[in-house]
C-alpha cells in the first residue's frame, strides 16, 4: 500500500478536526436582528402623562447625540428592575426617553416615585400605536437612536445590569 494512501485517512481527519474546531470557536449567531435597525424612527408625537414632564415626539430624538428610547409600562414587572439599570445609565450621562404603553397617570407617577425616575421625557401611548410602529412586541424594549434619529440597535426584554457595558458600547457606536 502506497505511503499516500496509508496516510490519507489521517489527513482527512486533520482537515475535519480543523473545520470542527473552527466551528466550535465561532458560535453561530442566533440573535434576531431588528428590521428597523438602520431605519429612521417612525414619525410620532405623544402627549405628556406625568405632571411636570414633557411628552415625546420623534423630532425630540434627533437631537444631535445618541439617546436611549425605552418602551415600558408601570404595570410591567420586569420594568421595575430595569428602571434601576436605566438610572445607572442616566448617571453615566445617557439621556433616556420613555414611551409609556397603555398606562394611567396616577399609576405611572406612583411607579416613578417608588422606583426612581431615569426619564428625560415620557410620551403616553395609550393604544400601543407607537409601540407597534417601532416594531416592539412587548415591554420592556429599548432602542439606541443616534443623533440623526436613526435606530441603531433594538434590545428586546429588560436591560440587565450585566448588559450595561454592551448598551454603552452601542451608544458609543451611534455617536
Amino acid at each position: 500500500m502506497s505511503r499516500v494512501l496509508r496516510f490519507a485517512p489521517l489527513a482527512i481527519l486533520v482537515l475535519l478536526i480543523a473545520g470542527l474546531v473552527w466551528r466550535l470557536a465561532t458560535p453561530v449567531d442566533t440573535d434576531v436582528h431588528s428590521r428597523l435597525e438602520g431605519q429612521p424612527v417612525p414619525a410620532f408625537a405623544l402627549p405628556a402623562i406625568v405632571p411636570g414632564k414633557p411628552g415625546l415626539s420623534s423630532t425630540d430624538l434627533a437631537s444631535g447625540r445618541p439617546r436611549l428610547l425605552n418602551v415600558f409600562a408601570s404595570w410591567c414587572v420586569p420594568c421595575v428592575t430595569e428602571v434601576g439599570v436605566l438610572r445607572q445609565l442616566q448617571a453615566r450621562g445617557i439621556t433616556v426617553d420613555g414611551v409609556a404603553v397603555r398606562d394611567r397617570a396616577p399609576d405611572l407617577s406612583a411607579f416613578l416615585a417608588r422606583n426612581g425616575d431615569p426619564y428625560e421625557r415620557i410620551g403616553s401611548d395609550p393604544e400601543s400605536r407607537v409601540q407597534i410602529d417601532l416594531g416592539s412586541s412587548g415591554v420592556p424594549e429599548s432602542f439606541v437612536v443616534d443623533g440623526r434619529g436613526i435606530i441603531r440597535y433594538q434590545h428586546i426584554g429588560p436591560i440587565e445590569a450585566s448588559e450595561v457595558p454592551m448598551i454603552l458600547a452601542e451608544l458609543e457606536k451611534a455617536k
Partner: protein
Amino acid sequence: MIAEAGLAALWLAAGLAALQLLLSVPTVRGTIDGAATVRAVAVVQGLFTLIAFTMLLTVFARTDLSVALVADNSNVAQPFIYKIAGAWGNHEGSMLLWVTVLAVAGAAFALLSHRTSEATRIAALGAQAALALGFYAFLLIASNPFARVDLATMLITGPTGLNPLLQDPGLAFHPPTLYLGYVGLSIAFSLAVGALITTEVDSRLARAMRPWVLGAWILLTLGITAGSYWAYYELGWGGFWFWDPVENASLMPWLAATALLHSVNVLAARAALKAWTMMLAVLAFSMSMVGTFLVRSGVLTSVHAFAIDPERGTFLLALLAIYVGAAFTLFAIRAPRLREGAPFELVSRESGLVVNNLLLSVILGIVFLGTLYPLFVEAISGEKLSVGAPYFNSVAGPLALFLAVLVGVGPLLSWRRERRPVLKRLTVPALLGVTALVITLALAPTLALLPRLGLTIAMFLAAASPLPLIGRNVLRTPLATWGMVVSHFGIAVALAGMAANGAFTSERLAVARPGEQLGVGPWTVAFGGVMPAAGKNFTSMEAELRASRGEGVVALRPETHYFSDPVMETNEAAIRTFWDGQLYTVVGRQDPSGGWQLRLWWKPFVTLIWAGGALIAIGGALALLGRALRGWRAGRPRPEPDWRRRYI
C-alpha cells in the same frame, strides 16, 4: 443517597477502566501474565456501569426532583413510561447510557470471545478500556448526570418536563437501540486496533469480529427504521427521511458497518482485503463518534434540538481526535506489514464484494460531505447555506440504485473465480424488471426518473434475491445464507416502498369548514368538526374525519396537543393503514374565518419502507443465529463427523 451511589459506581468503573488499560499493556508485551485479571476487570467495570445506570433509572422512576437532571427533564404528571424514558431523553443520561453499553459490550467480549489469540484479545480489551476512560472523563467532568439541583435556579425556572415531541413510545426504544448499535461497533474498532498492534490480521480475527459487527448492524438497522417511522408519524410532515444532520449521523455508521459486514466475510473466507477491512472497522466506530459529536455539540443545526454547550463539544471533539487519530496513525504504521491473502479474479465473489464496498464507501462519502459541506463553506467564504434532499437524492440515489442491481448479482458469484454463466440465471428477474418498467411507462408516463428506476430495480431485486437458494437443499442451507436472502429481499421491499411513495403520493392542503368534503387520491374525506379533549398532561383539539373510497367509511381523528409544561404544541397525525398504502391526516390551526387547516396524504405502499427495514434486520438476526448455533456446535467437546461439517 441513590444519586450519590450512582456517582460512586461511575467513579469506580472509571478507576477499573484505567486499571484495565494499565494492565493490558505489559500483558500484551508478555512481561506479566495478566490476561485473566484484565478480563475480570473488564467484567466488573461493566457491572459498575450497570449499577450506575440502574441508579439513574431509579431517580427518574421516583421523580427525585432534587437531582438536577430529573428536575430539568421530568415532572410528576408524566406517564410512568416517559419518566423512565426521560432518563435517556437528555444529554447526560444518554451519555451515561453510551458508556454503560460501551463497558457492558467490553465485559461481554471479555467473557465470550475466544477465537483470536490471547494477545490480540487483551490488546482489544486495552483499547476498549481506553475508549471507555475518555467517556468516563467526559461524564464525570463535563456532564455529571447525578448532580444535585441548585435551589436558587430551581426557584426561578421551576421544573420542566420531557420535550413533548419525545413523549412517545418510539423514544423508549429508538435511542437505546441506536446506541447499542453505535457502541457495538466499538468492539470491532478495538479488535481492529488490537490486531493492528499484534499484526495478527487473519481469518480468525474476522470470525471473532463478525458477530459484533452483525449484532451492531442489526440494531443500527432497527434503530434507523424505527427512527424513520417515528419521524414520519410524530413530526406530522408526512416524510420518512429528511436528510437531517442527525439522521445522517445514524446513517453514516450504518453505511460503514454494512461495508464492513461484507468485507469481514471476505477476510474470514479468503484472508483477503486485510488492510481495507481494518480501515472499515476503525471507520465504522469513528462515524459513530462523529455522529455523537454532531448531535451533542450543536455545530450543525438540526430539528433534533439538544442542549448545546461549547465545553462539551470541545471535550467530545478532543476524544474524537485522540481515538480516531491514534487508530489511523496505527493503521498507517502497520498497513505495510499486512500481507494480503489469496488473489482473486475479476469476476468473482471477492471482486463483487469489493465493488459493493466501493459503492457503499462512495455513498458514505457523499453523505459525509453533504452533512459537513455547509460547515466548510461557512469556514471559507462566510456564506451560510444548507444542503438538502435534492443533493442527496440526486447524487446518492443513482449510486444506491446501481448498488441494488449488484445486490441481485453478487451472491450468485462464487469465490475466487466464476465459471458458471451467472447472467443466464438472472434472465427471469431481468424480464420481471423490464415488465415493471413497461407497466410504469404505460400507466404513469410522467413519472420522474428515479422513482421509475426504483420500481424497476425493486422488482428485479425481489426476484433475484432468492436465487442463491435455488438448486440447494432448502433444509440444509445454512441459516446465514437464509439471512442474506431475507436481507437482500428486504432491500427490494424497502426500495419499492420508497419509489412508490415518491411516485404515487397524493397530497391535499386545505382550509376546511365543518361539513366540507375534500378529495385526496382515490379518497373522499368529510370533515365533521373539531372537539376539545384532555389527556393526562395535555389538552387537545380533535378533528373528526370520515374517509371513503367507494366501499365502507373509516373514521380518523388527528389531534393537536397543547402541553403546558414545557409550553408546546404538537400535531398528532391520524394514520390509517390499508394493504395498499396509508391515509395520513393532520389537523393544524384554526384560521380567522373559522375554517381549520387540514393536510391529507394518500401514500400508496409507503409501509413497505419500514417492512423492508425490518426484513433487513431479521435477515441479519437469522445470520447471527446461524453463526451462533454453529459456534455452539463447534464448541461442543464431541468432534463432528466430517460429512456434517461440510453441509451445515
